[in-house]
């Protein structure tokens, strides 16, 4: 798509600017109880080979029978990606040898995938909008798992994952920075999770990315790309791209050429390295799987699924922006996780001011959740509690400073915020007599600062700080400011 290079994304080098071009193939495990072509379970973490049927182990004479739910999930995902749904698609055999692939081929879709072209829209933090084209989505089997660290001379093979349904989602090479690639994977993950078609758990391998990276002079023809296999975290995707682009630039600037090859990212060193060359591995000799008829369904099947789709992140974001005038990026971050969006909406429903609630959820609440590194759903402060805190701040019952303390208090020891304010005497002091008394004390005790503030009115903040400290943060800051100015005879700034 956009072929105009954006200067901010260029890599500057002594020989001139370079642009990276990134495309991703994301493997997303389909959420289903049983496998794509067998009735064995898919649940993560079972004992070795406990979830393997004779079909998954490729015993002679076994035949694949497709799981209806996996087809449904692929179509729903396609609809979520605003993509063309193919009413007729074909399963092919992709032939290669590896110990964790007992069939000797992977059942996949090659020339006729179930889902065609679509699009994912990204809102970047700096306000840039990026559209990433989806080339296709196809259904395929996952392979088993090889463990290489159990024995010095052997590899151990567990086929529990063998035959689990995957959606391979292939993007166009539309990304121009590692941040865009990361935002794309996050957005895709968010859409899949809203749809309930993939749990998006990267640690358990439910979502993995193969990253294609090449570099070119801005506006020039595409360069030769390298594919970095199986990168399994958002952070690693960023690191792998940055390293790989610089490696390629160095080679070209030294007069060399890029070999098209498959590489591995090593999280320990932050580098990519060539996988032992398997040229023949690319000769997959695809052919239609004779065990499976073409996959066909009707338009009304697709229409029914379309009618039942949940509200997706982009729609939710548009609604948040239209109804409550939230900023683009704030709305994007709020809707990224459904639980987060629901939490925010619950606060608004309970009567919190939408903009204040958005700020509070994104800064205070999400900040603490991230700091504690826990799941959003497990945060101990409920939407009700946060709404109560915001309402009390809004009507002046407590100060903004106390609001944060109160939040921490509820996080650590629970309890009803309104009761806590009563019990602990956290109410904002808006009684001018009481504040004046304290101000007089501060002024009397600090004659030097009083001298100073007359010459330099900007040092008034120091007095505000002193008064706030003496009142335990409970004084109404606006009142403190006004009263101080009156007493010290400093004009309103």
């Amino acid at each position, binding site marked *: 798509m956009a072929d105009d290079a954006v200067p901010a994304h260029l890599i500057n080098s002594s020989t001139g600017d370079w642009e990276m071009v990134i495309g991703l193939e994301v493997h997303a495990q389909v959420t289903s109880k049983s496998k794509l072509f067998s009735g064995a379970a898919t649940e993560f973490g079972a004992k070795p*080979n406990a979830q393997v049927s004779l079909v998954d182990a490729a015993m002679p004479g076994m035949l694949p029978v497709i799981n209806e739910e996996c087809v449904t999930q692929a179509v729903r995902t396609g609809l979520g990606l605003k993509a063309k749904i193919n009413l007729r698609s074909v399963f092919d055999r992709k032939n290669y040898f590896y110990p964790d692939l007992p069939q000797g081929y992977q059942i996949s879709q090659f020339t006729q995938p179930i889902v065609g072209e679509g699009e994912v829209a990204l809102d970047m933090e700096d306000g840039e909008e990026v559209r990433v084209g989806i080339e296709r989505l196809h259904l395929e089997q996952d392979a088993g798992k090889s463990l290489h660290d159990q024995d010095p001379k052997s590899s151990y093979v567990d086929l529990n994952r063998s035959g689990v349904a995957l959606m391979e989602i292939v993007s166009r090479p539309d990304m121009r920075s590692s941040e865009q690639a990361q935002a794309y994977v996050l957005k895709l993950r968010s859409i899949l999770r809203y749809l309930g078609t993939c749990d998006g758990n990267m640690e358990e391998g439910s979502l993995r990315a193969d990253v294609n990276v090449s570099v070119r002079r801005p506006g020039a023809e595409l360069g030769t790309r390298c594919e970095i296999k199986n990168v399994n975290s958002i952070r690693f995707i960023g690191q792998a791209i940055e390293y790989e682009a610089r490696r390629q630039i160095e080679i070209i600037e030294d007069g060399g050429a890029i070999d098209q090859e498959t590489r591995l990212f090593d999280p320990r060193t932050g580098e990519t390295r060539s996988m*032992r060359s398997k040229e023949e591995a690319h000769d997959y000799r695809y052919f239609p799987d004779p065990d499976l008829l073409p996959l066909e369904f009707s338009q009304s099947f697709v229409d029914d699924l379309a009618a039942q789709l949940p509200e997706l992140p982009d729609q939710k974001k548009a609604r948040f922006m239209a109804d409550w005038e939230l900023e683009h990026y704030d709305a994007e971050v709020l809707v990224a996780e459904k639980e987060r969006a629901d939490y925010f909406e619950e606060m608004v429903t309970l009567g919190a001011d939408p903009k204040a609630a958005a700020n509070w959820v994104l800064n205070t609440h999400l900040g603490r959740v991230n700091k504690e590194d826990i799941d959003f759903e497990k945060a101990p402060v409920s939407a009700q509690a946060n709404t109560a805190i915001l309402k009390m701040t809004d009507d002046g019952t407590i100060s903004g400073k106390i609001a944060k303390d109160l939040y921490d208090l509820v996080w650590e020891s629970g309890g009803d915020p309104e009761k806590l304010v009563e019990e602990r005497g956290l109410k904002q002091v808006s009684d001018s007599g009481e504040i004046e008394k304290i101000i007089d004390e501060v002024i009397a005790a600090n004659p030097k600062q009083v001298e100073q503030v007359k010459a330099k009115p900007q040092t008034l903040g120091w007095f505000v700080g002193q008064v706030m400290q003496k009142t335990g943060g409970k004084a109404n800051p606006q009142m403190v400011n006004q009263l101080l100015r009156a007493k010290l005879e400093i004009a309103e700034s």
Partner: protein
Amino acid sequence: MKIDDATVRNIARLARIKLDEGEDKTLESELTGILQWVEQLGEVDTDGVEPMTCVTDRQIEMRKDEITDGGYADEIVRNAPERAGNFFVVPKVVE
């Protein structure tokens, strides 16, 4: 289409089939013969004819998403030349 020696060796390597001395020559002529025999179909005019995937008018069968199989790891690894617990054990494959 004629299959040459290099193609025979490549196919054999991809299929992990070991060829004995002289076997490649035999396969070269056999495979060429098979391909030429099938190529006769090219004489039929198939313009505008949809590829047929099944002789009867059947649609793909689908099953419900239910756990109906698995849970017999011991059976799965029973034929393995080597096992450790319920893992298959294979010569080390390094990436």
